[in-house]
């Protein structure tokens, strides 16, 4: 209607932002991004005792030092293991909820959607403390599985958000067409639903992985004496040793969350759904 006119006619191209608004918006974006850059800079500083700015000198030695620090590798493996298993569990459970929600109105539908969102809507300290209480009451010892249990619980909603948004866009007609053409439920799932849902699930999985990999609030309650990479980092922040080494690890954690987010964005781009609508 009006939108094709507006392309050619400058008077109809919509109002222009005032300079003040523009400046405020861009300043806000810069505010969100500039701090992260400092993490990179400080990984190269020669000063290891303070956060002196500007750095007195630059060096690349900390990457080698970090590589050779034996206390970094076990937390890294643990974090990767936890995030991978939690993501797989979240993909399965999140897809099931999304499939159920997209089917029909049923008794308790609203309550179920609330239940899925609750682990992430309530502060992490509550989820953490709840799990800690449950382990205490049931006398379950801390293990990798107690960490995974917590992570999978709050990752379900991430996969669910992505899957349900895609299912909403998917026309029910193609499923019926598939059935009409003689496919059984499993064939429809394998050949019709999965290819259409695939990228949304992958995006959800990526975000769930990113969320699990750097989660620290719930983890401190469910890990006991174990150390994931964020817990290692947290301890370094409270009792710093070689500060630039912490920066090197921070870069690794940043990359391990940044890349999945970027991939998730490209996978769900074009749709009206937001990949992470509400973390």
């Amino acid at each position, binding site marked *: 209607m009006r939108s094709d006119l507006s392309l050619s006619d400058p008077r109809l191209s919509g109002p222009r932002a005032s300079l003040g608004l523009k400046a405020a918006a861009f300043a806000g974006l810069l505010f969100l991004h500039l701090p992260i850059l400092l993490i990179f800079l400080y990984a190269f500083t020669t000063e290891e005792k*303070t956060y002196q700015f500007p750095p007195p000198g630059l060096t690349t030695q900390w990457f080698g030092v970090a590589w050779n620090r034996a206390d970094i590798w076990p937390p890294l493996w643990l974090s990767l293991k936890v995030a991978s298993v939690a993501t797989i569990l979240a993909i399965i459970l999140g897809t099931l909820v999304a499939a159920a929600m997209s089917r029909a109105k049923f008794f308790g539908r609203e309550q179920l959607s609330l239940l899925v969102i609750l682990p992430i809507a309530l*502060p992490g300290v509550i989820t953490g*403390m709840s799990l*800690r*209480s*449950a382990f205490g009451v049931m006398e379950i010892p801390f293990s990798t599985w107690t960490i995974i249990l917590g992570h999978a619980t709050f990752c*379900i909603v991430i996969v669910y958000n992505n899957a349900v948004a895609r299912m909403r866009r998917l026309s029910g007609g193609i499923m019926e067409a598939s059935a009409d053409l003689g496919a059984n*439920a499993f064939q429809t799932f394998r050949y019709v639903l999965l290819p259409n849902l695939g990228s949304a699930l992958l995006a959800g999985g990526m975000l769930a992985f*990113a969320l699990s990999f750097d989660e620290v609030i719930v983890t401190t309650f469910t890990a006991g004496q174990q150390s994931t990479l964020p817990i290692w980092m947290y301890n370094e922040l409270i009792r710093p040793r070689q500060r630039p080494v912490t920066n090197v690890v921070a870069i690794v954690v940043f990359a391990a969350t940044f890349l999945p987010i970027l991939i998730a964005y490209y996978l769900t781009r074009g749709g009206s759904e937001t990949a992470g609508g509400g973390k």
Partner: protein
Amino acid sequence: MKGAILPARGWADKLTALFWRRPGLLLLLLITPPLLWLGVVYLGSLAALLLQSFYSIDEFSGVVKEEFTLKTYAELFRAQNLDIIRRTVLMAGAVTLTSAILAFPIAYFAARYAKGAWKAAFYLGIMLPLWSSYLVKVYAWKLILAKEGILTWAAEGTHTSWIINGILSIPGLESSSLSTSPAGTFMVFVYVWLPYMILPMQAALERVPTSMLEASSDLGATSAQTFRTVILPLAMPGVIAGSIFTFSLTLGDYIIPQIIGNSANSIGMAVYQLQGTAGNIPLAAAFAVVPILIMLIYLALAKRAGAFDAL
């Protein structure tokens, strides 16, 4: 007649037919695993939390007494604990208010004026900080706010150190540097939760129809009037939705006040320390119930304001 229906070829077809005749069965199969998981793991844990909060700890032996009592809740009403709750709620309120003010221009610009590539850039520009590592962001601010850090350096370079010193001399915020002052804690909270405010706000603003704004100006409203009487009320559900995140996240956080600030206690820190070093799980559980109650009240108020349509 019979020839028109294909014969079932094995169990998969038979199951499909069964699902077709009984759609409820498929739904049940789909829903049981996640319901079991969330019901047992999550609701079960919440129940355990409530249960623990009604236990108490023996003051001499430090052993948890598994008998129903309200003694632990009564401890919450001690002056020092009430003070912790009051301070945390105050911080959460201040963070929410500031986030809303800072988020508005970004959300408004992204929703109304950003087009094409800029729109994508803004979306990513908000999304990436939201999802990127929480600890890394907090760490970045430890670098910024440190006494020898970039902020002091920049303030000296621009002769604005008096602003920082002024903030640090306000009663309640005194400290040698921002990284050990509650003012620093506040800044980091705002930084870390800001994207959670922008997104729902932007979603709400995007739903404001242009025709309404045109109608408003046709009827003689100035842009300030349009903003106040049309845009702001329509954006309100988004603001409230965003405030749920910023408020709830600040309420329960214990990492940020521990790393940046004067280590004054907050609800989150109290829970963490009580269950850890103090070993007083019942009181920790009772403390964890406080943000649940506050959030339930908050959510009930938000629901009445229609915030959930914008989530």
